């Protein structure tokens, strides 16, 4: 055996073993679990299509899917708009640019659990900071997290706040590739600031926008700790997320087969939604 072969295998053996046990096996077993009933106590039994049938008709699951789309419907436009605005502002010659960028990025480094607990306090109806500020402006207290139609939007705003710094960095990286001379050239042609943004900057930032949409969609489908801490999925299950439902099925109901089925369905939904988004945005570019 060649010495290089042996060193190559030895060096990568731990990783190869890890891949088999913690990546390949779980993926295969997830697919197997779809066809099983298993409560982790008794031996698993064959379930046929029971789990799939249950999923198709489970209003609580589809409620969670709908909730996620409500979340994304608010979160995506808001995330793009705020990230783009802040990135455009930071892209100008500035004093203390590093400070501004670091300030916007701060919530990204903080644990989601802490952010959820903090915003629980900010949103609190009676003693919260937000209602306190509103009271100064003469607005009556708003029940942010207990009103069924407000709870999910409130969470969407919070998640936007937490992640925006991350997407600002992505947009800033894209803006650095747009040469200043390009901007100046079309300014000389008489293009207004708005026209420059609309016809030069935005189209050139399309790759970043696709990335922002994809990453925040994937992130949105992973929504868990925010409803878990802030609302428990309520009021009226309006903030119940798919991952929270999966967790509940596994942890509280001991239904491993059904929980894994939700996981597989979630992976498929994410793949489908991201593929559709890319198509739509790609078409918009051609037009």
């Amino acid at each position, binding site marked *: 055996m060649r010495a290089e072969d042996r060193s190559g295998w030895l060096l990568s053996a731990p990783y190869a073993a890890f891949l088999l*046990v913690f*990546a390949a096996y779980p993926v295969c077993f997830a697919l197997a679990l779809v066809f099983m009933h298993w409560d982790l106590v008794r031996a698993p039994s064959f379930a046929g299509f029971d789990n799939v049938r249950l999923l198709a008709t489970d209003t609580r699951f589809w409620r969670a899917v709908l909730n996620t789309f409500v979340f994304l419907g608010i979160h995506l436009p808001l995330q793009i708009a705020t990230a783009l605005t802040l990135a455009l502002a930071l892209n100008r010659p500035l004093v203390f640019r590093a400070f501004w960028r670091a300030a916007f990025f701060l919530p990204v480094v903080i644990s989601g659990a802490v952010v959820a*607990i903090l915003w629980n306090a900010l949103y609190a109806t009676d003693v919260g900071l937000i209602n306190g500020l509103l009271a100064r402006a003469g607005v009556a207290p708003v029940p942010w997290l207990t009103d069924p139609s407000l709870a999910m939007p409130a969470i969407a705003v919070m998640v936007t706040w937490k992640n925006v710094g991350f997407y600002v960095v992505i947009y800033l990286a894209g803006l650095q590739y747009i040469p200043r001379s390009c901007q100046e050239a079309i300014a000389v042609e008489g293009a207004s600031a708005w026209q420059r943004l609309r016809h030069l900057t935005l189209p050139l930032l399309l790759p970043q926008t696709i990335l922002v949409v994809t990453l925040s969609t994937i992130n949105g489908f992973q929504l868990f700790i925010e409803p878990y801490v802030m609302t428990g999925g309520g009021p009226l299950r309006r903030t119940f997320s798919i991952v929270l439902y999966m967790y509940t099925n596994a942890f509280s109901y001991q239904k491993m087969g059904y929980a894994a089925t939700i*996981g597989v369905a*979630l992976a498929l939904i994410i793949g489908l939604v991201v593929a559709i988004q890319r198509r739509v945005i790609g078409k918009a570019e051609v037009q």
Partner: protein
Amino acid sequence: MRLFVRAALYLGLTLAAITFIYPFLWMLSSSLKPPFEFGTLALIPGSITLDNYRIMWSRAPFGRALANSVLVAGTITAAVLVLSSMTAYAMARLRFPGRRALNAATLAVLLVPGQLTLIPLYTLIVQLGWIDTYAALIVPYLCNATAILMLRQFFLQIPQSLIDSARMDGMGELRILFTIFWPLARPPLAIVAIFTFMGSWNEVLWPLLVVRDQQTMTLPQLLTVFALGGGAGTLGVSLAASMVLVVPVVVAYMFLQRYFIESMAGAGVKG
């Protein structure tokens, strides 16, 4: 006009920065306020009290959780640095049968959403009898595909002549990796270390599944359980508990913010 635009720009940036920083200052100040003062907007408490901290410390094992978090995140980070650079070195600089397959598998792993494998991993941990152990928190995170690809990319750029002359001197591959590659690869290693440590430090869904015993909980999990289970009693106590998790991160972030931003943004884009 120019001056007006610049003034508006700085005003806007200041307002935005306040939106991101003020809630954390409010959290600090609220954690120091006595309960009757909690609803007030004042950033400086009328009377400062450490009661919230005393209550939180006495009601749940936060000291232990802090130690657990350091142990878990530290072990994972060290393991990821060593194992990922070994794999990345083999993939970048050694020719051996199976290298291509390993590369393809690593790229494929990045495409698998975590939700798909969450439940099967959980059942695996149950079957291994690892519930309520550190192994459950650490072992599934020992290798990291993003880290491997990042380091591989860097290792590809190191000149072959360095390896050749080291081999001529009789050095083995592991010594070449740790005495020649590692000193050259400090920036990417720092990036990997930060995002691995932060990912583990902030993780809460996985611990919630595999740990039920308070003595084994990491900080974010104990904090979540504590705040939800009513152990905290008041929001002030919850916020005091949150401070234990936030302060080390914010202090590190203040000194290393450039590395944090580069690391966490880079890992998110690739992973």
